[in-house]
């Protein structure tokens, strides 16, 4: 159904995109070594648009999103570049102004619902905190809104359950609560950091369906972080694939799935059940790069079947290919990866 979604223009008209990352660099410095977690990523997201950032663990996707919220402890992290929300660089805001953005304009749903709710506080307290801080809601107003949202995410008998504690809910219910909690202040951007990874497959599907419906209803932009390309397929309009702290391919979901341009993306697709129907599933050989190592050439080169000598000595830049963008010298030979 996403295939029929009209393409969203990337800042071609006058409108400023909701979120823009410009040449974002993040590294962690310690006396022994420097880790380059993110090495110059740029992307943009319009209002109401949805984008998946796909990559294996260590690809820098979570660190990048944490830096958007200013949640990375600095030091040891060093963040350079621009994070523009509606044109304002969040990296330049003082901590108090940044705090007022967090939870009100940008909200997050974390990976593990079993640990991301405070076990000793009741749900009402945790859900109403943000609205009372940012919107000046009274306790009653905030509680009413919390009950509405709980009902909206499918928690039965929300008024009564507000006084329950997290351990009284199942994992899937807790993630629903986390989503409702994130929506309390009607954010413009919802960052979902692998919110289904810790859940059972059937629950995963329910949560994804819930988010898809919410997105349509609430007109909130969604940035979905995942290591699972399959999760992204039905959920988002565009996909950016990260490898070794860089974006190696981006494009519309339909395009990426039907015509991947980067050998890494192609490898990810080949390892998905269902997509490569009838063929044997293939794992990408080798391991993700050690973030302490800096290569001259392409980061994916050691694992790549299309590698040429050029790939070893020169780094391919992300270049527009009309509908999307890819960072690969050999993307013309992509058919050879299957």
């Amino acid at each position, binding site marked *: 159904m996403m295939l029929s979604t009209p393409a969203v223009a990337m800042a071609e008209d006058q409108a400023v995109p909701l979120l823009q990352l410009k040449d974002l660099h993040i590294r962690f410095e310690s006396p022994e070594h420097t880790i380059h977690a993110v090495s110059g990523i740029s992307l943009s997201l319009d209002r109401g648009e949805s984008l998946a950032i796909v990559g294996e663990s260590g690809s820098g996707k979570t660190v990048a999103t944490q830096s958007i*919220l200013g*949640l990375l402890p600095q030091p040891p992290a060093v963040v350079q570049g621009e994070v523009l929300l509606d044109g304002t660089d969040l990296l330049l805001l003082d901590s108090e102004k940044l*705090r*007022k*953005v*967090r*939870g*009100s304009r940008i*909200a*997050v749903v*974390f990976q*593990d619902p079993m*640990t*991301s*709710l*405070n*076990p*000793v*506080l*009741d749900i009402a*307290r945790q859900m109403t*905190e*943000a609205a009372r*801080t*940012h919107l000046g809601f009274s306790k009653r107003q905030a509680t009413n809104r919390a009950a509405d949202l709980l009902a909206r995410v499918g928690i039965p008998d929300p008024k009564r359950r507000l006084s329950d*504690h997290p*351990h009284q809910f199942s994992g899937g219910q807790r993630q629903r609560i*986390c989503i409702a*909690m994130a929506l309390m202040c009607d954010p413009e951007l919802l960052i979902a950091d692998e919110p289904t990874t810790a859940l059972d497959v059937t629950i995963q599907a329910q949560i994804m369906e819930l988010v898809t419906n919410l997105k349509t209803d609430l007109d909130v932009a969604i940035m979905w972080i995942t290591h699972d390309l399959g999760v992204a397929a039905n959920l988002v309009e565009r996909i950016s694939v990260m490898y070794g702290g860089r974006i190696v391919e981006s494009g519309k979901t339909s395009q990426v799935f039907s015509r991947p341009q980067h050998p890494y993306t192609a490898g990810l697709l080949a390892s998905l059940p269902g997509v490569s129907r009838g063929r044997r599933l293939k794992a990408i050989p080798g391991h993700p790069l050690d973030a302490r190592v800096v290569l001259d050439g392409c980061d994916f080169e050691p694992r790549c079947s299309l590698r040429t000598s050029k790939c070893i000595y020169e780094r391919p830049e992300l270049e527009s290919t009309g509908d999307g963008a890819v960072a690969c010298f050999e993307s013309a030979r992509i058919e050879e990866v299957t």
Partner: protein
Amino acid sequence: MWIYIVRRLLLSIPMLFVISIIVFGLANMMPGDAVTAMISPEAPGSDELSAIRRGQLGLDRPVIAQYSSWLGQVAQGNLGFSFITGDSVTSTIGARMSATIILMGTSLMFSIIVGVALGVVSALRQYSGTDYALTLFGFIGLSIPLFFLGLVLVYLFALRLDWFPTSGISPAGQPRTIMSVLHHLVLPGISLGLLRVALFMRYTRASVLEVLHADWVSTAESKGLKRRTVVAWHIVRNALGPVLTVIGLAIPVLVSGAIVIEQVFQWPGIGLLFINAVNQRDAPVLMGIVMLSAVVVIVANLLTDILYAWVDPRVRYD
């Protein structure tokens, strides 16, 4: 919850019974008795006098009989009568109760507030200069004998600087007023409290570090809450459970400390009464105080468990 409390209270009855046997046994095994302490053996006719006195006090009856009549009285809230003064033990202890409660209560409050606060500061600034200084202070606080600390404080702040009185609860011969009691309370209160400041600080620090990097703290920060709120409600609130347990376990130690500190400062509480009772072989008073202290510990343990369930709703008692 109520069932749990009632069950715990019922369970403590056999325990108190065993304790009462131990206490009575101890008091009975004491060399000499009240009569030896009252009547000098050199006095003329002391043997006859002693025998008469023993008869009056019921000390010539078999041990079992003495125990059961004592226990019967205790069950009715009557702890017997002092061998020395003849006053009711219940009222003797009652008269001293307020002084001890004031001393122990304020000192405990002081050490909880200061200890928990310092522990939180120490943990939030882990590995900073402040943290190291506080850790060292914690070690010293746990290593200094209470009475030595008391003497040093008296030497410095009462004798050298003359800011506080050396002993007592109010100026000699004058009635207690709130101001005078507070003035007399400062030095013994701090002496009794410092050990627990150090103890609570250590455990609070460890407990806060345990939850400092929990996922729900990131959640709270991502909601844009004020730093104060995050620390108070999502870090300290979660660290309180284990700290409460330590506070509960510190109650018996606090009772021990109060005995020493009351002696150093001549604070007219139960501790001073206890030492006098031991020196005068006043068994009824002694037994009364030991029983009371055991009851206090049992109640403190129960309260701790109830409070634990209150701060950490995951704990279920059944």
